[in-house]
């Protein structure tokens, strides 16, 4: 596939993520911060985000495994995940966090477990899409480098 076609494919792919509500405008802001002096910025941010999100989701899982859940601890983790999601433009994941926040506020363990399932779902979807996005990005960079 040629460079122009790849770029179009990437653009359309990101657009579909906007339309599905998976991403919001904040992601465009991040893309806009990538330039020739920082050619891997999007990849770096996505990588940081995924590592962080997985760490937090694991911690929340662990927390909810205890008989007596430490809800204030849980609160702190949800806050972190919601913040990261917001910063990268992960819209649906951010909304899923609000669900967990609500259940945690109500000290509703069952509600928290359900909300966590949704978060895990949304995160897995997002990660899959990010992987596809990065694959496209790398192909583009490779082609551009070869053309120089």
């Amino acid at each position: 596939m040629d460079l122009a076609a790849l770029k179009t494919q990437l653009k359309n792919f990101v657009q579909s993520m906007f339309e599905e509500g998976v991403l919001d405008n904040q992601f465009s802001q991040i893309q806009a911060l990538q330039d020739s002096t920082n050619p891997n910025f999007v990849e770096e941010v996505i990588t940081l985000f995924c590592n962080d999100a997985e760490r937090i989701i694991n911690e929340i899982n662990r927390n909810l495994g205890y008989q007596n859940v430490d809800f204030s601890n849980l609160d702190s983790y949800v806050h972190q995940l919601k913040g990261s999601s917001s910063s990268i433009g992960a819209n649906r994941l951010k909304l899923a966090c609000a669900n967990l926040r609500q259940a945690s506020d109500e000290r509703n363990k069952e509600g928290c477990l359900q909300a966590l399932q949704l978060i895990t779902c949304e995160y897995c979807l997002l990660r899959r899409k990010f992987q596809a996005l990065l694959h496209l990005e790398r192909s583009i960079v490779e082609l551009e480098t070869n053309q120089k």
Partner: protein
Amino acid sequence: MGMAIDRDDTQFHVLAVDDSLIDRKLIERLLKTSSFQVTAVDSGSKALEFLGLNNNDADDDEEYEQRDSNTESVSSDEDQDHQDLGLGVNLIITDYCMPGMTGYDLLKKIKKSSSFKDIPVVIMSSENIPSRINRCLEDGAEEFFLKPVQLSDVNKLRPHLMKGRSKDIDSSHKTTSTRLISSGD
């Protein structure tokens, strides 16, 4: 040598404080895109450390009375270092919600410090809580940005920095003579 104001007049140095790795990366990129020099740290205590302010130093004038076994003793040489380090930072931008020292706590400490109280402080938060915002602004924060911070927010920083710079130039002579007196020479 005295106090050398070693400052590149074309570049401002911003100290960014945020416990979130992603947010640190973002704010750093935003600031650099706007041609600021950036130092990013992950806590309020690291910020104070960078400025040369010991965690327990609430007010430089009280330093000599505040010594206890836990506090590093502050000599008059270190007092000079505080000033020199502090002059390197033109603005502090900090997250509000951080474990340990919050951005608000950091704001208070900065404003209590005779060396650094004139450095503009900007607070960022993911939560839109009017009482929180008002409290920060009333207690000395120049601006309050809602996260995620945008380039348009960062563009609002320059006027605060320009204001600070002209004040620095005016007060530099006064600061020199004050230090000479307090260092006990």
